[in-house]
């Protein structure tokens, strides 16, 4: 295991142990470790900052509420993403349709920012079963096995959705991809 991964694993174990023993301040350590990743994931799923912040906060609140059940067995990250995923699905059901982020900060050139908006919109238009594997595997760079565990599906099923999702996104993006090549 690389040094960074080992250090993170030990830190996660320490925070989880502390939290399961009733030390609520340990939540701060877990937020430091995973807050940004969960925010990025929820932002990409929901498409706007406000909902992503809400979903991220609620994810960590749920961790706190179930702190006595926590086990430092290496599956925490998968569980955390599952909570975030369920919250995103709930929010999408509430909103019915996705909206473009009006308060998003796009860094980089205008061309890159435009591309990002276009891709985000195209992703938002995809059915959820295609969007989820694309966000986890192609955007979050997560291994297929972990992504499959988060989505509670088999690895072949994940890959099938991922491949169909890429084709669907290609069809939606159309000429945009030609211009970026």
């Amino acid at each position, binding site marked *: 295991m690389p040094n960074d991964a080992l250090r993170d694993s030990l830190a996660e174990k320490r925070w989880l142990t502390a939290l399961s023993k009733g030390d*609520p*301040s340990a*939540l*701060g*350590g877990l*937020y*430091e470790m995973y*807050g*940004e990743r969960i*925010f*990025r994931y929820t*932002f*990409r799923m929901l498409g706007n*900052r406000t909902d*992503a*912040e*809400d979903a*991220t*906060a609620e994810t*960590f*609140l749920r961790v*706190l509420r179930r702190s006595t059940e926590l086990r430092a067995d290496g599956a925490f990250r998968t569980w955390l993403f599952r909570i975030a995923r369920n919250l995103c699905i709930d929010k999408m059901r509430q909103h019915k349709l996705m909206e473009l982020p009006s308060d*998003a*900060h*796009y*860094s*980089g050139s205008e061309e*890159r920012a435009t*591309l*990002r908006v276009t*891709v985000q919109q195209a992703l938002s238009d995809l059915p959820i079963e295609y969007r989820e594997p*694309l966000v986890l595997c*192609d*955007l979050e*760079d997560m291994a297929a096995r972990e992504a499959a565990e988060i989505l509670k599906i088999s690895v072949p099923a994940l*890959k099938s959705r*991922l*491949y169909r999702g*890429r*084709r669907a*996104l*290609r069809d939606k*993006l159309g000429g945009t*991809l030609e211009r*970026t*090549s």
Partner: protein
Amino acid sequence: MNNELYSKLVDLYAGHELPAELEDQMELAAVADGGLNHEITTLRRVVDTLQSLEEPDFTEESYHRILMKLYARGADIQPQAPVSTHFQYNLPLQG
């Protein structure tokens, strides 16, 4: 290898999951096969575009707004990062 087999490997090619040698063979076969060429080119472009996108900015404001939401819901959470002064003091309202 025939192009029928290559067409089954298109998705692996798109995701950079094939060995370089096999990629080269597919690219060579695609020169003479317009359909295969379109598939491997466009699908890889989708993957490369997604992987090259900038990550959403996890701004300091977002970091603290999430912390405040947690406080407001009763979580005893200690921020590890120092809090900026504009988050420590309420500015007087004008007008």
